[in-house]
Each structure stands twice: as C-alpha cells, then as structure tokens.
C-alpha cells in the first residue's frame, strides 16, 4: 500500500501535464487534477494505490476569491488497508459546470454527485440519476452557491394558507 507521498508521486508521474497543483494540510495531501483527467486519476488511485473507498464527494464555491475557476469539486478518498486519506480536487468553470461521473468507480459516488448537483448545480456527465436529494423536487435554485441569497427567493412563503 502506498503512503500519501508515494501516491502523489505516482499521480504526477502518470499525469505530468494534468496535475496543476498539490498541497498538504494537517497531514492530509491533495492534488489538483484537470477535470478531463480526474476520473482516470481516481481510477489509478483506486486500482493501484489502494484508495478503495470514496468517503465524500462535494464542491466548493470560490466566488470572487481569486481562484482559477469558480467551482472546485473535491473527492475525499480513504484506504481501508493503510488507514490513509487522500484528496483529489478539480477546478470547474462557471460557464460549463460539468464533470464526468465517478459512479462507475464507486457505488457511493452517485449520492455525492446528486448532492453536489442539488446544492451547486454542477452536472455529472454519465450519472443517470441526477435528481435532487436534499431540497424539494420542485426547488428552483442551487442554494449553496455563494450568490444565492441567504433568505432565498421567496420559496419559503410559497405555500397555500389554511384558515378556520
């Protein structure tokens, strides 16, 4: 089983032109992979480096924070054998918020993709069941986007009234 440092080296060796950044915080490493290659990188990590569990799949909205792109999709991996965590991130532009689906790699991916789509409006190409998971099915927006008003667009007053 590979340590996190070895895993970073292996990902960079395999995709020298597609790793656009790396870092470490609190003992956990991450790599930024271009979104065209992110599924291949995840497959490499799962099949040869032992990260067999997708713990979480989510996104971050970097609106007006000087980031390269507005959205960042985050894959949090875990290796049951070596008890190591590893994070893969990818930048997603605002104009074309799509990423390929990871549902062929992990059965847990569709759930995270549904939540990420529900909250951020990021589409996952190839996910056949991209329905809302937290918000009501007829909800009109993606509320975790930073430009979504905290108090909503009036959805909370949109119900019939009953009187005696």
């Amino acid at each position, binding site marked *: 089983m590979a340590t996190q440092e070895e895993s970073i080296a292996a990902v960079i060796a395999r995709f020298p032109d597609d790793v656009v950044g790396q870092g470490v915080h609190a003992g956990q490493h991450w790599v930024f992979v271009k979104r065209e290659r992110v599924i291949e990188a995840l497959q490499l990590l799962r099949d040869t480096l032992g990260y067999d569990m997708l713990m979480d799949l989510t996104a971050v909205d970097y609106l007006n924070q000087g980031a390269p792109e507005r959205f960042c999709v985050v894959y949090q991996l875990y290796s049951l054998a070596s008890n190591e965590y590893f994070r893969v991130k990818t930048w997603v532009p605002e104009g074309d918020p799509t990423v390929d689906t990871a549902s062929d790699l992990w059965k847990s991916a569709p759930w995270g993709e549904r939540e990420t789509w529900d909250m951020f409006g990021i589409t996952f190409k190839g996910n056949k069941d991209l329905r809302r998971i937290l*918000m*009501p099915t007829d909800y009109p927006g993606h*509320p975790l986007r930073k430009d979504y*008003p905290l108090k909503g667009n009036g959805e909370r*007053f949109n*119900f019939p009234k009953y009187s005696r």
Partner: protein
Amino acid sequence: MGLESWMPEGALTTRVDELVKWGRKNSLWPMPFGVACCAIEMMATLTSRYDLSRFGSEAIRFSPRQADLMIVSGRISIKMMPVLAKIWEQMPEPKYCISMGACASCGGIFDTYTMVQGVDNFIPVDVYIPGCPPRPEGLIDAVIKIQEMVANEKMSKRH
C-alpha cells in the same frame, strides 16, 4: 328543587352544550408533530414526571384522523411544510393547534431559504409557547389555555 326533584337519585340535568364541551376539554388527543429538539421536551411532558395525563391529553395519536390538537414542536423546513399542511387537513374539526418553541412560531434563529418563518403563516395557531426549547410546564400551560378556549367557545362555532 325543580325538575331534579322529580328524577331518581343519581341523575342530574345540564345543557348539551356544556356536557359536550366538558367532554372535549378533558380529552384533547394530541397529534405530535415533533420534528426537532422541542419534541424532546414534548416527550418529557408525557412522562410520569410531568404527566400530561393529569389533563386528559396523554392519548397521543399518530393518526391525524383520531386527533384534535396538533402540537407543532420543532423547525419546519420547506420540504416538511406540505406534509404538515396535509396532516392538518386530515384532522377532523374541531381542531386546535399549539405552536411550540421559537422555531415553530417564527423560524427562530433559522432565518434561511429552507425554513418556514412560523407555521402561523400557513395554518391557524391557537397558542404559542415561547422558549428554545420551552419547559414542559410551558406545554402544560398551553394545554390548559386550549382547555379554557374549548370551555368558553360556542358549540355552534365549530362542528
């Protein structure tokens, strides 16, 4: 004295109105709409320590068709609001509603896109209980207030 002196012992006269109200008042069956932390206090109210059955309201009905007092205890999200409205509609008249706690009454600290800002925006509420969460004594007080309401209203008003 009057009519009663003509009747056998053990019988008494009253008005139908008063008798029905007396029965209603002492057998309020709550429908617990407990969706958050306030529901814990509602459960505590039903335990032997606070003993809501002293007031005839211990028969918690999870079927709205058998209940006449809805206790909304907890925060109502916009996904839950249609459910609440449906259950309210299923309850037969006469029905009453207690809005328990800050969240049910006005949204509390959750002034966000996903929270209904007070169930009284959509269903009629008879008694509000302040607090986060209210103590069981607060809920008992609210039940007694509902009992007073029942005792003082005209039967013809609700049927």
